[in-house]
């Protein structure tokens, strides 16, 4: 999962939420793409997504993969960032009873995974209550 090159090439997305905006029709894709799924244009510009958003749907993972054992149970959801783009992210620092569709959130930088005790550390975005 966390092979260095594979992790490294997604850094602009994981750290800075860099997305691609189609220059022809204005649709924003996260992560960026080579061809627009709306209008087939191949011309894009880099934009940054908002770091604020709203919780669209969520769940609490109680049986999770072993690399998340120390964090289980943890909440994950689909968050619609202001501007319309949706991301899948863990919802941190939130009592599970407070999770609700429509909850306002902001993006925070967290460590997502570690590659064992000697491999690389993988960072990225999570969302916390605004």
């Amino acid at each position, binding site marked *: 999962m966390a092979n260095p090159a594979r992790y490294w090439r997604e850094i602009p997305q994981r750290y800075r939420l860099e997305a691609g905006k189609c220059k022809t029709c204005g649709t924003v894709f996260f992560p960026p793409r080579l061809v627009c799924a709306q209008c087939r244009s191949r011309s894009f510009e880099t934009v940054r997504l908002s770091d604020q958003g709203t919780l669209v749907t969520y*769940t609490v*993972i*109680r*049986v999770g*993969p072993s690399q998340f054992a120390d964090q289980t149970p*943890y909440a*994950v959801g689909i968050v619609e960032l202001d501007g319309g783009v949706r991301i899948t992210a863990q919802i941190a620092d939130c009592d599970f009873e407070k999770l609700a569709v429509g909850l306002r959130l902001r993006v925070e930088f967290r460590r997502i995974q570690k590659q064992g005790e000697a491999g690389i550390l993988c960072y*990225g975005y*999570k969302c916390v209550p605004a």
Partner: protein
Amino acid sequence: MRDVAVLGVGLNSKWGELWEMSLRDIFVEAALNALDDAGVDRVDSIVVGCMTSGLFVGQEHLGSLMSDYLGMNPAAATRVESACASGGAAFRQGFLEVASGAADIVLVGGVEKMTDVGGDEATYALSAASDMEYEAYHGITFPGLYALIARAHMHRFGTTREQLAHVAVKNHRHGARNPAAQYPYEITVEDVLASVMVADPLRVLDCSPITDGAAAAVLCPVETARKLSKKPVVKVLASAQASSTIALHSRKDLTWFESTAEAAQKAYRMAGKRPEDIDVAEVHDCFTIAEIVVLEALGLVERGKGGQAAESGMTALGGKIPVNTSGGLKSKGHPVGATGVAQVVEIARQLRGESGARQVEGARVGLTQNMGGTGGSSVVHIFETV
């Protein structure tokens, strides 16, 4: 395009944790059963549906492997992959080979051997059906993804936790009549609600299991089937496939499976049928919520009302449109690549009148719906006895 018939079908004898059987053993057993049922010994082409023999057993090149172990060389043989829709997609490829005239007798087999790895690796392998970098990376898990859909459906349409449980209960009631099923016994709504929470609101008994198993079908032109077989001829009326976004968060509507709706529309058109014409269906209940949303996307129930189908008995044996008489993925098991083909096996038997204790009386038109990931791909087939 020629008319295509299902000449023979077969499964390996029992689905479950098959410690003594390897990937190739399971496939060969199912394939031989299908070939015997078809009354043929040689095929022109083999299509193997399997999600990820690479991650589960480290084996690729399944076409060559299976052709070899079935003694079918030098037949053309290929593996088809579409995550959990690999079986249905393989069946579609087999159908196209016969329909186009490229081949006269095609063996389609679906297989998955999931128990040679531990739970953690199995979870990882299954997560490969999602967006690895932007969904699985964040620890969402498959039950987690379907839990997101369940929450959205419950929020928008008021679907209840009990309605989800009814899907599992109904499918187990059917599966209890299927000796080849992994869990051939009934469960209650209370059992479901008391089972361990996996990803809120989905519990263990809302989720299809880890299973080893295989299913196979032999296809040929309808004319050939009429000549070769004494059994009722099951014609493939329609074969359709459609795609949607790989990531759930890229969908416009989290409570809908666009790929299923699209494939279903194409299939109904191709078959000249409407949802009301379907007598029996096998659909992709990887999680209880999946069956609910799929029924809506197939047009078998009204939008938003999927939760009422199992609860009201509409989709039970004896109901208006029995769904998953085999026990579905939940009770019968879900060896990923095999599922889509096993659905065809069940429908073919129903249409031939061979389903015994779970027979839908007078079934003439059947539908199978097989889906990959959270709906990134869907394959729909419609069958009729002719």
